[in-house]
C-alpha cells in the first residue's frame, strides 16, 4: 500500500503545495510508494503552460511532470474539481489520471497527508 499526499491549494500563492510535493518526492526517494492527489484549487497545479518567471519562482509544472520519473506512483486529479476550474484533460500536463474524490478512493492508502 502507498501513501497519499493531497494538494488542495492553488500554486504559487503559498509554499504548501511545494512542501507537499517535497514530501511525496522524499517518500519515493526512500522507496516508499507515494501518490499525489490534486483537488479543489490544487488542480491548477496541473494546468499546462505555467510561466512563473514574473514571480521570481520556479515552475512547479516541471516538478510535477517529473514526479513519475522520481518514483511517484500516481498523479491523481479530482474530476469534479477539474470541471469547477474548467480544465479539459487536454489542458493538463501529461501523465495524470482522473478519479472521483470519495472515501473509497482514500481507502486505498494506508497514510494520507494533507498540509
Amino acid at each position, binding site marked *: 500500500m502507498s501513501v497519499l499526499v493531497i494538494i488542495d491549494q492553488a500554486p504559487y500563492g503559498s509554499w504548501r503545495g511545494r512542501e507537499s510535493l517535497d514530501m511525496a518526492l522524499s517518500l519515493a526517494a526512500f522507496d516508499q510508494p507515494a501518490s499525489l492527489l490534486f483537488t479543489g484549487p490544487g488542480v491548477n497545479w496541473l494546468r499546462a503552460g*505555467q*510561466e*512563473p518567471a514574473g514571480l521570481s519562482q520556479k515552475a512547479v509544472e516541471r516538478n510535477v511532470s517529473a514526479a513519475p520519473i522520481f518514483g511517484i506512483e500516481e498523479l491523481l486529479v479530482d474530476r469534479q474539481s477539474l470541471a469547477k476550474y474548467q480544465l479539459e484533460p487536454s489542458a493538463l500536463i501529461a501523465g495524470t489520471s482522473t478519479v472521483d474524490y470519495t472515501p473509497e478512493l482514500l481507502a486505498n492508502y494506508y497514510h494520507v497527508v494533507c498540509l
Partner: protein
Amino acid sequence: MKTLHIVNKSPDQARFGRCLAALEASDQLLLTENAVIALADAGIVLPSENYALAADLEARGLAGRPTTTVIDYPGMVRLTADADRIICW
C-alpha cells in the same frame, strides 16, 4: 467614492465571497496571486469591470483570458493611485 478592491485569495475561500459582497457597482476589482484562478472558476461570477495581474496569470497558465483586463505592476500602481479608497482582502 470609488473603491478599489484588491483580493489575493483563492475563490474557494470565504474571504473571496466577502470581497464580492462588498462591491458597489462603481467599484473596481483587482485579482492578484491565487485570486486569478477565479477567472477559470465556473462557480464564480465576477463584475464585468475586473482586472488581473499579468505575472500571476502567466504563472498559473491563465494568460489570454478574455473576461478580464490584464495589467502589470505599473498598471496596479496606477489603479491604486487613482482610487479614492483601497480595500485589501
